[in-house]
């Protein structure tokens, strides 16, 4: 059941505001990925997440601008719908991409594979891997990042949770109880 504005011919499909928005969104997202790689290659950024968000927002702006220009130059209807579709497409592709990025960047499993691969024979004692990835040194590095993102604070030699960190812990603690996940980690 659809409205009376439905297209009748194949030639009309090229005038679909949603399709134009999707294609523009995909195109700008690919350019965003390329720009992010160039940015990371050129600069040693401390807060990469903030940089990625700022870059994404800029490129979403460019996508909206592109859909608007395309609509006006071709006298198309649905400028707002086209812009909305490009924003949804870019935001969706970004939420697919970010977990993938964090797996590459922070996963202990990935780091384990890379550590083993760096050995010619690909073999290491479990004890040595534990010393690298289940030790106080590894945890300290993660805690330093959490302090930088203001989830934790340092009190002498002890770490304490901040209000921001407490809110996150409470929300996810509730989700763990709702889904009966157990302690996990």
């Amino acid at each position, binding site marked *: 059941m659809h409205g009376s504005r439905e297209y009748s011919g194949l030639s009309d499909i090229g005038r679909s505001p949603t399709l134009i928005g999707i294609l523009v969104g995909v195109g700008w997202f690919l350019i965003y990925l390329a720009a992010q790689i160039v940015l990371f290659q050129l600069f040693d950024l401390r807060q990469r997440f903030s940089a990625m968000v700022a870059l994404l927002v800029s490129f979403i702006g460019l996508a909206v601008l592109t859909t608007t220009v395309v609509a006006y130059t071709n006298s198309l209807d649905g400028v707002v719908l086209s812009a909305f579709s490009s924003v949804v497409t870019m935001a969706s592709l970004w939420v697919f991409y970010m*977990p993938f990025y964090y797996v590459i960047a922070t996963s202990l499993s990935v780091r384990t594979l890379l550590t083993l691969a760096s050995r010619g024979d690909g073999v290491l004692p479990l004890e040595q891997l534990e010393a690298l990835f*289940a030790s106080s040194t590894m945890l300290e590095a993660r805690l330093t990042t959490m302090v930088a993102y203001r989830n934790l604070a340092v009190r002498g030699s002890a770490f304490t949770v901040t209000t921001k960190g407490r809110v996150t812990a409470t929300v996810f603690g509730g989700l763990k109880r709702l889904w009966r996940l157990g302690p996990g980690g």
Partner: protein
Amino acid sequence: MKGVVVAMVAGAMCFTVLTIGLRALDVRRRAGFMVSVWLLTVPAFVTLHYVTPADLGFLPASMTEPWPVADLLLGVIAYAAVFFGGILQLYNLADRGLSLRVLIDLTTSGPMTVDEMVKAYSAGRGMRWMYAKRMEGLIDHDLVRQNGERVALTPSGRRAAVIFARLQRILRIE
């Protein structure tokens, strides 16, 4: 825009079904279970999109797509994002997130030193338990094998390591 609205409704329904499933059943491979449930809800999403009017009874004409297939495509993209970027990531963080577990441990037990956290991690299971869980995952996926106290890469593990090393170089991750 209808597709995005339907995707949000379908996402809420999927979350509810998953919650009921995880509470009622003793699920071992939860991520696989969640993906299966999502895949089963995709036909329901498409049906819901087909049977509802283009304007859903409240959308302005300017936000109504004349070509339903394009609207459905945008809806599928949004629905996949709601699940893979939203619900499934919430699960991954809640069940496997190291930083989140540290936050929860510190919230429940109060301030701790690094050495105390290594022992108290995950309600007293400790960091070695956490790493054993990761190792189990790598063995399950045939990326490494463990012979006694020695851990070795499998051929597929070596191939995966090559890909990850390349990606880390491209993204300049050290």
